[in-house]
């Protein structure tokens, strides 16, 4: 830990509204040195707003945001933060090399431009005009601006948007090099695979609130990370739905019937091993049994879906909403 408090960034009960829309709602969050953190959330979840608050581009209505124990602006001025914003434009009528050299020059702990160009993988386009770049190339130039100096925290808002697959891989390799050098990395993404494979901590933001915080394995477990699916045939005996629901680890149950009486069962479970054992113990004979792992994507949908369900129940006791969420979770 390079700073005394062991805190890179802290949100303390932070809220921010735009008009009547509450973009960030009571956010409490601490980032620790050396973490690679993914910020997940559907569009409008408050990801970009949270990053704006973190970087001091906006002021919170309530609560406080601190970066390295000081204000975001002071941390930016001290050259401790580099950021790549979704909405971060680039200067036109200059060459890539000139823009990167500028970013290095104004950074209090700037690197050599040639190093930054190599690190960001843009050496071969260094003499191109910034306004003549493709979307993916522009993203890499933005990345170069974010790593122009020896930052302790790098913030990236949907960094790989517009990059093709090979460039994306190259980008994450560069990002990993930054993380391995001991930097804290916070990135917002809607590619769940990126969060799954790159982040060692995943934050799920929904309607401005933090609804999950853990490793991607923990998030998956929370959502019921495995799916047990099988068929029950009528000649194997009657089906007791209550018994299925009572299986250990069951998060949700989905039962569909065919005209010939065969029923398909899909169970989302936090403990598939115990669930399958319980199935046999209940005297059922599952056919075509499959246990599959859910990706973070499914886990994510489940968590945000459950949160929506929770919210709507808070607002009005609507039974039908339950079915709808089940529908979405499928």
């Amino acid at each position, binding site marked *: 830990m390079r700073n005394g408090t062991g805190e890179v960034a802290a949100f303390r009960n932070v809220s921010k509204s735009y008009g009547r829309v509450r973009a960030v709602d009571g956010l409490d969050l601490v980032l620790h040195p050396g973490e690679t953190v993914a910020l997940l959330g559907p569009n409008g979840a408050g990801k970009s707003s949270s990053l704006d608050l973190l970087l001091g581009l906006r002021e919170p209505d309530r609560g406080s945001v601190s970066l390295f124990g000081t204000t975001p602006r002071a941390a930016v001025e001290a050259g401790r933060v580099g950021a790549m914003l979704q909405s971060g*434009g680039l200067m036109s009528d*200059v060459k890539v090399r000139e823009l990167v050299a500028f970013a290095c*020059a104004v950074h209090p702990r700037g690197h050599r431009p040639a190093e930054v160009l190599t690190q960001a993988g843009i050496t071969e386009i260094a003499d191109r005009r910034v306004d003549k770049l493709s979307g993916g190339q522009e993203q890499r130039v933005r990345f170069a601006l974010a790593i122009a100096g020896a930052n302790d925290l790098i913030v990236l808002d949907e960094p790989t948007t517009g990059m093709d697959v090979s460039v994306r891989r190259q980008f994450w390799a560069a990002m990993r090099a930054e993380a391995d050098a001991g930097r804290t990395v916070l990135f917002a993404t809607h590619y769940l695979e990126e969060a799954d494979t790159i982040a060692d901590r995943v934050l799920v933001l929904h309607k401005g609130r933090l609804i999950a915080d853990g490793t991607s394995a923990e998030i998956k477990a929370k959502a019921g990370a495995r799916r047990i699916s099988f068929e029950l045939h009528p000649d194997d005996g009657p089906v007791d739905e209550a018994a299925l629901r009572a299986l250990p680890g069951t998060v949700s149950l989905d039962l569909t019937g065919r005209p010939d009486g065969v029923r398909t069962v899909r169970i989302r479970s936090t403990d598939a091993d115990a669930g399958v054992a319980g199935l046999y113990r209940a005297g059922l004979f599952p056919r075509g049994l499959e246990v599959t792992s859910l990706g973070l994507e499914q886990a994510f949908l489940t968590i945000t879906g459950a949160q929506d369900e929770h919210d709507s129940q808070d607002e009005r006791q609507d039974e039908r909403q339950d079915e709808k969420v089940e529908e979405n979770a499928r």
Partner: protein
Amino acid sequence: MTTLIKLEIMRTLRNKRYLLFTVLYPALLYVFFISAYSGGSVAGGIPAKSYFMVSMATFGAVGAVLTGSAQRISLERKSGWVRQLRLTALPGRAYTLGKIAACAVTTLPAIGVVFAIGAIEGVHLSAAQWLGLAAALWLGSFVFAALGVALGYAAQPDAVQPIVMIVYMLMALFGGTWFPVGDSLKKFAQFNPVYLYNRLAGFVQPGHTLDTTAVAGLAAFLALFVAVAAHLYRKDARQA
């Protein structure tokens, strides 16, 4: 901050549209006016080549600073470059100062080219008068740079271009850029910064000194535009 200013100046000079509209266009118009008046004088007895040398230099200078500041600031607010800059250690005002500095440098070619044509066409001034005139027109252009900054923070990019064109053309039309302002309109022209700007050049005429009312008027406009620009800039900074 000097790094940003250097980069701003370089990119402006590199922009071909800038050179076309703010340097070449007034120079061509000047040549056109000289031939149209074929050595004659405008109303009021001033030789056309002298009169239009000043008015085309101011026309180019105003165009250079208005487009250089208003359009670019508006575009770069929209594109997010302004936000990106806020993530550097540069102080917030560096951006605006960079724009004004770039404007100040880029008015010089606009004035210089027209003056060079004037000298070739036989406008006779002493060295001190040439220098004084260039200095007066250069300093006067800062009034319009401040106006440009204010417009850049006031309007969206798709609106700022027509606004700049309309403001620029109206001020030029009633400010003596295309023809001397008639006596009946002079009352109103006092409130037109371009008219006051053109009057700065009056001291080179025999028997005239620097028009202090024009200087005072321009100073008032500068104060007004700076105040509005500063207000809009602060508002923009809060909204990121």
